């Protein structure tokens, strides 16, 4: 009969205890590798969600369509204006079914005054769908609605920073706000939006919390039918680019090809972000794999040395009746104990690094348990693989020769 696993574990612990320094050093490779997997896993997931949370503040399906201002070839004159009129977009939603929401936008920089405080805002003339397109959330009050637009109501919705600056102590809802030379009643305040990361990499320069929204109809009355650009949301991110192209074709036809248009779609940014994150995680994954493999080789080394040193012990055990599988199990168990302990220490070590990073960054990190499980599984596997060869060698020793070994 083979001896019970409890006995084998006890024996293995005994021999590992005997060579503490060596055991510790052998474990180091695996510890670093496993901690690496944890940190990379957590940073990867957190980084990805951070980036995507910020991308979401523009809307994954969002498309902007502008006039292309580069001169057309073979034309001596350039037409003036934005090339987009408000009535251009009225039938678009019906003609292109992949448009979910669409809004004309006119943008101005304008001073807003209240209670003697003035603040430079980015005034947006939009329709009621804008709040959906950029996934904005209301902090209080409501957004513009159809009636506001139809009846040219002098109402506005303000960004978080605008509310903070102009109404530091009271609720802005119902207050009158002077924007340029028009009074607007504040009907809603938007929640704060975070685009710090995108800003830090230069992908977004405008402060999303400094915006102020008023009905588009007011701009039409004041400035005429011309609008600055179209912002729309496609029914899915995958349809965003086709939709944008369809809109451009439509606009070109309507304007007898006087104007050229171009678009930017969040889909393109999502794709590049995914591509970059993919490359980064592959590279990190490869480096961690190398670390684990090197660690595994270290374990295999130590186990081989340990077997060679203990040939005589193998002979003794065999003379006492140990079967080949008993010897194999003993050495394999040592290796598995070694690597799983290293794995556990690595997980704890990795967890500590993540904790420190969390404090340092000041943001909660996503801690997927699957990485903990994966790390542990990898260390177990390394233990089995790197222990199997030395253990087989040990179990195959001829006891008569092993006993003579000095």
């Amino acid at each position, binding site marked *: 009969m083979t*001896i019970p696993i409890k006995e084998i574990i006890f024996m293995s612990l005994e021999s590992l205890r005997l060579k503490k320094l060596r055991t510790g050093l052998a474990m180091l490779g695996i510890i670093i590798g496993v901690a690496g997997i944890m940190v990379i896993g957590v940073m990867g997931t957190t980084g990805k969600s951070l980036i995507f949370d910020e991308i979401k503040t523009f809307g994954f399906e969002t498309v902007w369509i502008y006039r292309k201002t580069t001169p057309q070839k073979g034309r001596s004159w350039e037409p003036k204006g934005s090339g987009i009129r408000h009535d251009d977009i009225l039938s678009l939603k019906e003609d292109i079914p992949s448009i979910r929401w669409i809004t004309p936008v006119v943008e101005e920089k304008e001073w807003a005054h209240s209670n003697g405080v003035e603040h430079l805002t980015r005034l947006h003339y939009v329709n009621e769908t804008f709040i959906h397109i950029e996934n904005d959330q209301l902090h209080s009050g409501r957004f513009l609605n159809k009636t506001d637009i139809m009846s040219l109501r002098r109402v506005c919705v303000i960004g978080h920073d605008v509310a903070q600056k102009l109404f530091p102590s009271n609720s802005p809802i119902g207050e009158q706000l002077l924007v340029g030379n028009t009074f607007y009643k504040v009907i809603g305040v938007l929640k704060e939006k975070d685009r710090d990361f995108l800003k830090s990499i230069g992908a977004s320069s405008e402060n999303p919390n400094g915006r102020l929204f008023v009905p588009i109809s007011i701009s039409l009355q004041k400035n005429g039918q011309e609008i600055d650009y179209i912002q729309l949301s496609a029914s899915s991110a995958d349809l965003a680019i086709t939709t944008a192209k369809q809109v451009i074709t439509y606009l070109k036809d309507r304007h007898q090809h006087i104007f050229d248009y171009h678009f930017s779609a969040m889909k393109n940014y999502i794709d590049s972000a995914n591509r970059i994150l993919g490359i980064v995680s592959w590279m990190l994954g490869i480096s961690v794999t190398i670390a684990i493999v090197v660690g595994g080789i270290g374990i295999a080394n130590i186990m081989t040395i340990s077997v060679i040193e203990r040939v005589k012990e193998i002979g003794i055990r065999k*003379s006492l*009746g140990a*079967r080949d599988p008993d010897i194999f199990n003993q050495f394999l168990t040592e290796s598995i104990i070694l690597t799983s302990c290293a794995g556990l220490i690595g997980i704890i070590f990795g967890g500590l690094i993540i904790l420190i990073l969390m404090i340092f960054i000041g943001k909660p990190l996503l801690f997927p348990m699957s990485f903990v499980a994966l790390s542990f599984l990898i260390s177990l596997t390394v233990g089995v693989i790197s222990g199997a060869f030395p253990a087989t060698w040990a179990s195959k020793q001829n006891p*008569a020769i092993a006993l003579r070994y000095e």
Partner: protein
Amino acid sequence: MSPLIKLTSIKKDYMIGQSQLSVLKNVSLSVEQGDFISLVGASGSGKTTLLNIIGCLDQASSGEYLFETINLSQANDKKRSSFRSHTLGFVFQQFNLIPHYTALNNVALALTYQGISKSERESRALCLLEKVGLKDRATHTPSELSGGERQRVSIARALVTNPKVILADEPTGNLDSATSQSIIALLKTIHNEGKTIILVTHDMGVAKQAKRTIYMKDGLIVEDSK
């Protein structure tokens, strides 16, 4: 009565490079229950190889090995290990104790491979240590024991499984003559309790204490005096 051990035409060859070395040329031997045999011969005569084959530590190149009615000539690892564990006890010249185990654990280890529980292992081991007069040394490691004490521990280990046969390879080879005498006396006691003992030695003084002496030379038995 059929013999306890019956070896017929045992040969053992080693390949050294391209040339074949015959260590045992043609050995036939019968051992009766209760024998006390000493195997004597110059080094290289094949006495240790013969003992190893009897002990299932090594396998013969050809020939037949019967223990009672069990044929061990072509037995697999499982059968041979079980045979070593239950039927044999080994005593070696180098003591062959595990250095980081205490005397008690060294003795108890022999029972581990029989799947016996820890408490029973320890009580039986302690009993045997008492028998060889080392009860108060139970917690000492081999390095803290004298040569004679180490050999007593290894005898206790050989006996703890209550085997039928004790195989001793130069058990006094590393001991001074006084200690040797006490070890031989201990083996004699064990023999008198009914154990079959096969002892390899090159010390004629030790050999003479056995009931039967087998002389070996160049891989052959040259004399068998009962």
